[in-house]
């Protein structure tokens, strides 16, 4: 990985100019300084460590679920334990992992770097967000201690208002960790509006920033509703206020409306930043200006808005009126349009590009494949008549794993590999990276495609046991999940290894054109930029850097050594009167 020495030199020169050779990791070391840091990069890392832990725990729970289902009857746990295990898998993955994942880790680290800011707008709020999240995590542990939760991640009433155990703790944890999500979203919106470097117009924002912007809107608008829902559920259990529990005169369908009003948009909280990551990966590794920049940017916003109008498609069999089901179904189809626009634009970006198949790009390609399956199966369950057959079967489980794991997690992994050199200053092992992608891709499809088939054949979700004819497919799914887990453990292994023993990364190993690569040192300065950059071109204008890129023939194509990197943006004039202001 000794490409792009030029970028490193540039960064180096800048460094010596300033005569303070420091990077953000050396700056203010020590555990106390970390715990009180307001540096968005360090907060991103703190989130990364916490979320990796949650992902590990929730992943182990998933393996337990799959192992239980490898054969009929009791395999490794009894039915009650099984209920708790799949419930905790769902809750941890959705509320404590996927919702914060990309925004809190990569968003925190990369967003200010990409827009040329020194930090997010509210650094203290950012730190508070991590603490609130941790309080939520501790309350989750409390929920386990006080008897666990077996309601499924959806907490449907009346079961959730009557079953014993730690439901109150769990719902409180979700209420609390919702604030972490709101803080992050609010912070990002203000940051994107107010903190952009001179010349960083809305049309020059990297698409990852657009993705985060759309995500943040959803976080700010949807999360308060799950907050009040969880609060009402807690009051239902403690005081019997009778809003949701039919035994007290309440309406359980109202709970479902409230729940999905958040939880459907929450799906977009998980996938929109993944779209953003993907745009970065595809453009950089195709060495090509992104096709349809505005279409990709605005389709994210369109999805964010439409996402608020489709929650009823989770409730086709709940007894809501037929007319609302039809309307929700129609609007659900509409979501397919902006999603399709994105996929076509990404493919068009790759067309005639110089595709460089590094690990991040392999994740991006996996994403395209898996997310497309997730999207199409999503349209199918959005069809009223088909959904009545598929509702609450493994088909739905397969569908949302294709979107959540095949979409969100793949993009997160791709993004982590892509920004790894910037975060740690080290390169990971490319060969192991490629092996891991392969295992993850194959394992994933074995695990979840078999579940699509199972569901279509009628296997209901959340069941502890099954009849003979499902056994073969369940076994394929379980063995697939082991391959998947193996792939993920390889990533964990070489990731940790590279932090200590990986070769030092240059400032711009991928020859990318966005600010975090062109204008930031290999390991960023504690204040990001030594000089605030003046942005003069779009984020993917590789062609405007022709003199450094050559005419583009054959650049990339796996020949790392031949890569030239785009020049850094010039520094913003310091006392300038006419410096463009952020509107």
């Amino acid at each position, binding site marked *: 990985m000794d490409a792009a020495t030029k970028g490193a030199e540039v960064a180096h020169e800048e460094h010596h100019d300033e005569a303070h050779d420091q990077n953000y990791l050396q700056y203010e070391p020590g555990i106390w300084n970390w715990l009180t840091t307001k540096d968005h990069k360090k907060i991103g890392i703190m989130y990364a460590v916490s979320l990796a832990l949650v992902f590990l725990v929730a992943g182990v729970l998933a393996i337990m679920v799959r192992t239980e289902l490898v054969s009929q009857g009791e395999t490794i746990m009894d039915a009650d334990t099984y209920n708790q295990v799949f419930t905790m898998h769902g809750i941890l993955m959705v509320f404590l992992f996927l919702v914060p994942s990309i925004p809190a880790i990569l968003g925190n680290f990369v967003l200010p770097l990409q827009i040329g800011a020194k930090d997010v707008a509210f650094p203290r709020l950012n730190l508070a967000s991590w603490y609130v999240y941790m309080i939520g995590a501790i309350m989750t542990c409390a929920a386990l201690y006080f008897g666990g939760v077996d309601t499924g991640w959806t907490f449907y009433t009346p079961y959730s208002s009557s079953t014993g155990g730690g439901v109150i703790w769990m719902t409180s944890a979700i209420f609390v960790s919702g604030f972490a999500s709101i803080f992050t979203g609010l912070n990002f919106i203000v940051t994107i509006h*107010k*903190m952009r470097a001179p010349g960083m117009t809305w049309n020059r924002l990297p698409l990852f920033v657009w993705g985060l912007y759309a995500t943040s809107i959803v976080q700010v*608008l949807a999360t308060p*509703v799950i907050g009040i829902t969880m609060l009402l559920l807690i*009051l239902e259990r403690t*005081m019997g*206020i*009778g809003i949701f529990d039919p035994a007290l*005169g309440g309406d359980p369908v109202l709970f479902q409306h*409230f729940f999905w009003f958040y939880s459907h948009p929450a799906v977009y909280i998980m996938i929109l930043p993944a779209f953003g990551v993907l745009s970065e990966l595809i453009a950089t590794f195709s060495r090509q200006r992104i096709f349809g920049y505005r279409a990709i940017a605005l389709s994210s916003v369109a999805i964010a808005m439409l996402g608020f109008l489709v929650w009823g498609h989770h409730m086709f069999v709940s007894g809501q009126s037929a007319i609302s089901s039809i309307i929700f179904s129609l609007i659900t189809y509409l979501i397919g349009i902006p999603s399709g626009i994105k996929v076509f634009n990404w493919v068009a970006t790759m067309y005639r590009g110089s595709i460089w198949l590094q690990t991040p790009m392999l994740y991006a390609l996996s994403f395209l494949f898996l997310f497309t399956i997730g999207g199409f199966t999503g349209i199918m369950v959005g069809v009223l008549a088909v959904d009545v057959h598929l509702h609450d079967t493994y088909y739905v489980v397969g569908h949302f794993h294709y979107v959540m794991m095949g979409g969100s997690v793949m993009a997160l992994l791709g993004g982590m590999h892509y920004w790894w050199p910037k975060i740690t200053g080290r390169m990971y092992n490319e060969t192991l990276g490629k092996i891991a992608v392969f295992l993850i891709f194959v394992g994933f499809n074995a695990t979840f495609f078999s579940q699509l088939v199972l569901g279509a054949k009628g296997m209901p979700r959340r069941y502890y046991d099954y009849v003979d004819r499902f056994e073969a497919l369940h076994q394929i799914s379980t063995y697939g999940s082991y391959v998947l887990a193996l792939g993920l453990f390889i990533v964990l292994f070489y990731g940790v290894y590279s932090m200590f023993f990986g070769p030092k990364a240059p400032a711009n190993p991928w020859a990318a054109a966005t600010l975090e690569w062109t204008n930031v040192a290999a390991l960023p300065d504690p204040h990001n930029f030594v000089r605030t950059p003046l942005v003069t071109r779009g984020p993917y204008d590789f062609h405007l850097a022709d003199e450094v890129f050559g005419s583009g023939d054959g650049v990339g194509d796996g020949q790392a050594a031949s890569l030239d990197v785009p020049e850094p943006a010039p520094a913003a004039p310091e006392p300038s009167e006419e410096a463009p202001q952020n509107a």
Partner: protein
Amino acid sequence: MATDTTTDTPAAPAQTEVDLHDEEHLSHLQHHFVSSEQQFDSAKLGMWLFLITEVLLFSGMFVAYAVFRQWHPETFAAASQTLDWQLGGLNTVVLLASSFTIALAIHFIQKGEAMKSFWLQVGTIALAGVFLVVKYFEYTSKFEHGVFPGAMFDPHGVAHGVDYGALASYAYAPQFFSIYFVMTGIHGFHVVVGMILIGWIASRTYRGHFSSEYYTHIELSGLYWHLVDLVWIFLFPLLYLV
């Protein structure tokens, strides 16, 4: 007026230094902002976004209200009768007055008259206190007659011409009072938070932390307080009058 600005040209954001280790930072300017104006605008935008989340928090409860009212209009009409519209109206006036005092507090700090602003903030807290006292009497008069939220609902007795016992014959009366207590309770919680918030900025105003150059916290607390007021403006007619 605290004037530690170094230049007296109008505050064009671009004129402050972009450089990192600038010794001439204004005392209140955080390092990652380019100018006070940028800092103020960011804080204000952040506050507005927070207020949006507040509106959505309450909107959940308003939806619950609308749904149950739609299903059981006669219960809601009868139950609404037992709330004292005069006390509710008094509280409406009190809160409106408190919004006025906090708006004046912002006005005076903008003119640099910190002590006037301080006393108006104290006045706002006092009015908020009046609101809570009235609310306390309303709550206790309900509890005395067994009007509790949800499962403990057991209405009895007659007071001030209101027949609480008659509520027992309405099927979904507990839901009305659940909604009433939850909505006004969460609103009351916001009032308490507002009092603490304004108490904090009042003490800072008294110590001279704010000036016509820098009054972000007062402005933002004012915005928050207006929202608390506004929510009540919706709660009062929906619960007491219709």
